[in-house]
C-alpha cells in the first residue's frame, strides 16, 4: 500500500517494447541504473514493463539506438491527477471541506457498542448509564476521562465486576463482565457480625474461623436461627466482639416450580405492515412522518437502527425504522410432550440460577395439570452453605 502510494507520487509508466531483442534493451536499462518491475510477455515480439516516469527519457534514448518501438500503455502520476483537476475549484473545495468535516466528526462519538452483556443488565440500560456518566453519542471523545467513567460505572453496578471502554474511530466499545456469583468474598473484619441460618436444614459440617458457634453438627436449624455469635471468649477469659466467619453446610430441602401453559398464542401475519422512518442527524431525531397512527388491532413491532459508516468510521447520520406488522392472534393447543420439554428447560435454567452453589444429592419431579397449565414441581435434597452474616 505504502509502496503504491510512493510510486503514485513518483509517477510510473507501463511501456510496451516491440522488438525481438527485448532482453538486450532491459539489460542496458539495468546497467544504466534504471529499476523496472512487472515485466510480462505480451506476445512473441513484445514485452510490457513498468518503470519510473523519470526514467522514460533514458528508455527512449536506448530504444532509439536499438531501433525499437515503444508504446506507453499506462501512465500513473500525482501530477497528472493534479493537472486534470486543478481547474475544478468546486471539486477541490468540496474535497477540502469533506476532509475538514471528517476531521471534526472524528473527534466525537457517533456509535456505542456493548460487548459481554448477559441477562442481568440490558444493552440499552448500559448505554443509558454511560450516557449519564458522560459517555454517549455526540460526546467529545478526547475530553473524556475514560478510567474515571469506568470506575464510576463499577461503583454504581454491583452486578458488574470489570468494565473497559475502547475507542475505535468514532465508535465506543464498552466491554464488561458480569458477576457469576463465584467471586471471592472480602471480609470487613472491623465490623462485628453474627451468623444466621439462611434456610431450614440439618447441619452436616461446620468450620468456624471466627466467633463462637452456638450449634453443633447434627443439629436441625430453622431459617433465621443464630448459628455463630460475635461474642468470643479468648484464651485469657476475656470477652471480645469479632466479625464472625464460618462455613456451615447443611442438608436442605428446596422446591422449584415451573409452569407452562398448554396453549400458545400464534401470531399469523396478515401481510399488512406499516413502516415509519426517522433520521438522526447529530443526535437530533427528525421524524419522516406526520402521525404515527396505527389502525391495526393486533400487531408485532420491530425496530431497527442503521448507522451510516465509511469502513469502521461511524458517521453522525443514522436511520431509525419502526415497522408495525398486522397479525391475527389465535390460541392453539400445544402437545403435552412439547410443553414438558419447555417446562424441563425452564426448570433446568432456574436450577442453575438458584442452586449454583448447592450440591444436589436427590431430585424428584412431580408433574400435574392445573388450570390448563403444566406444572412441574421439583424437590431437591441439597448440601449447601446456609450461613449468612448480619452486622450492625
Amino acid at each position, binding site marked *: 500500500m505504502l509502496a503504491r502510494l510512493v510510486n503514485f507520487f513518483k509517477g510510473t509508466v507501463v511501456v510496451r517494447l516491440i522488438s525481438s531483442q*527485448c*532482453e538486450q534493451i*532491459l*539489460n542496458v536499462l*539495468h*546497467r544504466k541504473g534504471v*529499476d*523496472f*518491475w*512487472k*515485466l*510480462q*510477455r505480451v506476445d512473441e515480439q513484445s*514485452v510490457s514493463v513498468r518503470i519510473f516516469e523519470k526514467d522514460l527519457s533514458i528508455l527512449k534514448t536506448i530504444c532509439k539506438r536499438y531501433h525499437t518501438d515503444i508504446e506507453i500503455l499506462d501512465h500513473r502520476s500525482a501530477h497528472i491527477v493534479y493537472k486534470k483537476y486543478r481547474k475544478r475549484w468546486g471539486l477541490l473545495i468540496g474535497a477540502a471541506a469533506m476532509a475538514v468535516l471528517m476531521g471534526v466528526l472524528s473527534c466525537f462519538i457517533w456509535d456505542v457498542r456493548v460487548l459481554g452483556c448477559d441477562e442481568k443488565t440490558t444493552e440499552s440500560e448500559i448505554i443509558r448509564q454511560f450516557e449519564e456518566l458522560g459517555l454517549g453519542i455526540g460526546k467529545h471523545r478526547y475530553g473524556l476521562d475514560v478510567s474515571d467513567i469506568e470506575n464510576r460505572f463499577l461503583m454504581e453496578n454491583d452486578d458488574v465486576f470489570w468494565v473497559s471502554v475502547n475507542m475505535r474511530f468514532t465508535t465506543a466499545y464498552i466491554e464488561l463482565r458480569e458477576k457469576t456469583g463465584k467471586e471471592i468474598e472480602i471480609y470487613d473484619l472491623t465490623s462485628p457480625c453474627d451468623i444466621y441460618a439462611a434456610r431450614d436444614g440439618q447441619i452436616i459440617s461446620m468450620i468456624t474461623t471466627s466467633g463462637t458457634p452456638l450449634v453443633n453438627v447434627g443439629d436441625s436449624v430453622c431459617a433465621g436461627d443464630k448459628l455463630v455469635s460475635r461474642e468470643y471468649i479468648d484464651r485469657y477469659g476475656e470477652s471480645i466482639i469479632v466479625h464472625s466467619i464460618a462455613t456451615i453446610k447443611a442438608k436442605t430441602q428446596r422446591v422449584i416450580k415451573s409452569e407452562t401453559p398448554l396453549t400458545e398464542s400464534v401470531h399469523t401475519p396478515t401481510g399488512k405492515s406499516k413502516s415509519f422512518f426517522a433520521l438522526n442527524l447529530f443526535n437530533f431525531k427528525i421524524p419522516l412522518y406526520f402521525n404515527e397512527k396505527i389502525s391495526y388491532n393486533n400487531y408485532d413491532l420491530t425496530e431497527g437502527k442503521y448507522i451510516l459508516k465509511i469502513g469502521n468510521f461511524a458517521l453522525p447520520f443514522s436511520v431509525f425504522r419502526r415497522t408495525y406488522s398486522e397479525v391475527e392472534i389465535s390460541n392453539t393447543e400445544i402437545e403435552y410432550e412439547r410443553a414438558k420439554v419447555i417446562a424441563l428447560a425452564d426448570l433446568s435454567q432456574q436450577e442453575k440460577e438458584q442452586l449454583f452453589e448447592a450440591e444436589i444429592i436427590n431430585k424428584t419431579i412431580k408433574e400435574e395439570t392445573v388450570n390448563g397449565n403444566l406444572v412441574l414441581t421439583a424437590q431437591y435434597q441439597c448440601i449447601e452453605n446456609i450461613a449468612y452474616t448480619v452486622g450492625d
Partner: protein
Amino acid sequence: MKKKKYSAWQGFVHALSLPEDAFVSQTHVELFGQKELVVSGARGILEYSEELVRIQTKERGIAVEGNELRVDMFMEKVMIVRGKIHAVLFE
C-alpha cells in the same frame, strides 16, 4: 580433477568460519514454494518468455523453467521471478 578455487578473502572467511553470504559477494538464490524465486546478485536477463527465464549472475547463468513466468522486480541486482516454477537449473 580440477581443484576448487578460492580467492584469498574467501579463504580467510572460510578459515574463520564466518558466514560466507555476509562477507563474500556471492549469488544468493531463494525459492519460496513453487511460486517465487528471488535472486540476489542478478546482472541481467539473458532470455525471457513465459516458460523460461534465464538470468545472468556473476558466476553462472540460472534458468528458471515454468509456466506464466514474469519478472516481478529487477532493482539493485535483486530479481524476483513469479509464476508456476517447475525447475531451477544452474548452467
